């Protein structure tokens, strides 16, 4: 653990810098909202980040520090007040298919079966609304369905689940399908907003393991927002802690800690002193970060 804390980030990064290319570049980004007349509340302030391809970045911070705002501006759902964002080398101005997205809630379309949820992306991508009348659509659809069934099994679900509607699945199963849905698009960037927060510790643990194995296999760039320090340490290869520099509305959050973690994952005893020290160390950068009681971490780490 000491080595994790003391070594400079470069030492812990497995990939040499020269071989990596930037997946997400955030330059001088500030986000503020008007509050009443002649007053603005700053959420993010002068944020500069470069996220390399294949990195698993976990963003941690106290409630209201701008974690989700950061995700929304990377996604293009929101535009920064100043600064610029680029994904895969081109600026982000609106939501598009460059990034996959897994939110905490409403991650699946309730009116579609699991299989239709999975095939929607590839189908829409190739055949827009009237394009479905074209002759090649049926064959393409059959092919995508086969691929979707494989993806479903890969996510640990049964093929019999393919015909179910989202409301017939548990929360954990829904998030598995949501991850599969994003992977079906083969996006190189995956954005996850508190994707496992609403799940019980057991389900969360199994989904964390699944996500780690998917990431190890495909190496997409992942930006994972969470408020759970243990989860952050387990999942990420890079940890970014956002924290407000002052309680004033004029001061937004900045990067308080930017730490690389071993790519092979943290192999610390989940109940051990070393692990707890690391958790406290990370939390000291953001005193408001919620840390669940150690008993509930048993399943997650």
């Amino acid at each position, binding site marked *: 653990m000491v080595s994790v804390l003391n070594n400079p980030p470069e030492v812990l990064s497995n990939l040499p810098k020269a071989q990596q290319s930037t997946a997400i570049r955030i330059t001088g980004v500030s986000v503020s909202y008007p509050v009443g007349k002649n007053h603005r509340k700053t959420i993010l302030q002068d944020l500069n980040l470069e996220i390399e391809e294949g990195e698993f970045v976990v963003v941690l911070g106290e409630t209201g520090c701008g974690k989700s705002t950061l995700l929304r501006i990377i*996604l293009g*759902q929101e535009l920064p007040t100043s600064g610029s964002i680029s994904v895969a080398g081109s600026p982000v101005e*609106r*939501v*598009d*298919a460059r*990034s*996959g*997205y897994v*939110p905490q*809630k*409403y*991650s699946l*379309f*309730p*009116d*579609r079966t699991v299989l239709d949820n999975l095939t*929607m*992306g590839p189908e*829409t*991508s190739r055949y*827009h*609304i009237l394009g479905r009348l074209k002759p090649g659509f049926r064959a393409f659809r059959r092919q995508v369905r086969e691929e979707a069934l494989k993806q479903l099994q890969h996510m640990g679900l049964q093929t019999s689940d393919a015909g179910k*509607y*989202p*409301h*017939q699945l548990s929360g954990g199963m829904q998030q598995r399908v949501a991850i599969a*849905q*994003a992977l079906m*698009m083969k*996006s190189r960037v995956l954005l996850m907003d508190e994707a496992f927060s609403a799940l019980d510790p057991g389900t969360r643990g199994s989904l964390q393991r699944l996500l780690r194995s998917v990431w190890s296999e495909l190496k997409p760039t992942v930006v994972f927002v969470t408020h759970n320090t243990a989860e952050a340490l387990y999942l990420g290869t890079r940890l970014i802690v956002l924290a407000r520099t002052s309680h004033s509305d004029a001061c937004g959050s900045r990067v308080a800690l930017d730490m690389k973690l071993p790519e092979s994952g943290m192999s610390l005893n989940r109940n051990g002193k070393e692990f707890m020290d690391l958790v406290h160390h990370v939390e000291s950068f953001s005193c408001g970060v919620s840390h669940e009681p150690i008993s509930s971490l048993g399943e997650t780490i």
Partner: protein
Amino acid sequence: MPFHSPFDIQARPNRLFAQTLSCVLFVLCVGLYIQTSAKRHHENSEDRVVPNVHQLTGGIHASVLEPAEEDDYLAPDNTSKWELFRHSMIWKDTVASGKRFFTSLLLLVPAVILALHIGLFPYFGAGFLRFILFFDKIVALSLLPILFILFGIDEASKIALIVIGVAPTMILDVTQMVKAVPREQIVKAFTLDANNFDVAYRVVFRQVLPQVINSLRLNLKPMMLFLFAGEMIAASDGLAYRIAIMRRHMGMDVILPYVLWVAFLLYLIDLSLRVLNRRMHPWFQS
């Protein structure tokens, strides 16, 4: 046996008891009617205000198997029952009112599409929402004279009255439904490479459709109300026209079956929409 209070929120009445209870008011109404009719007929055997069973049977027979006064007479001996029904008063009126009703229903489809666009596309919202909010406050019946002047007293004015009466409320209702679709779903669709029309019609419209059908079910009665208003003022056929004509002759023996027939038709349309919704959207019921 424990006492069951009607004000017990946590009560669990058994199925048979609940079904019996649901019939009580119907039975009471029929009983009250029969008693009132008998009393009035005891005082005046020619009473037409509360017709007895015999008079009602005659009225139903006249409505279902006899042509309207303004139509040609068909000899019952040479014609089949079905032919008689096809040329009956009630058939003619139902077809006439039905045409107006379903044409109006069809004209509500563009209103729903407009609502979808208003709720989803910011420029549509900016352009239309305030105008429709204002237009919704105009009492549709107050426009009836204007509609008669503009379209004449033919079909167009009656259909326009129904559409003008129901469409603004429906548009506002559907707009709210569209706005209530979680933003995450729309964002997610864009990340799946959907374009604006994919999002509008393949994501949002599909999700709000069951609610749109429910909204339509709630609007069936207002639609019929506006249809009746139009027919009662200026028409030469239709269910409301016949009721208005029969009122002049104190023809309660025909008016009552007509009222029940209209209620039955509306119930049937409502039931069909409910079944359609359940079949088409099994995910929605949950």
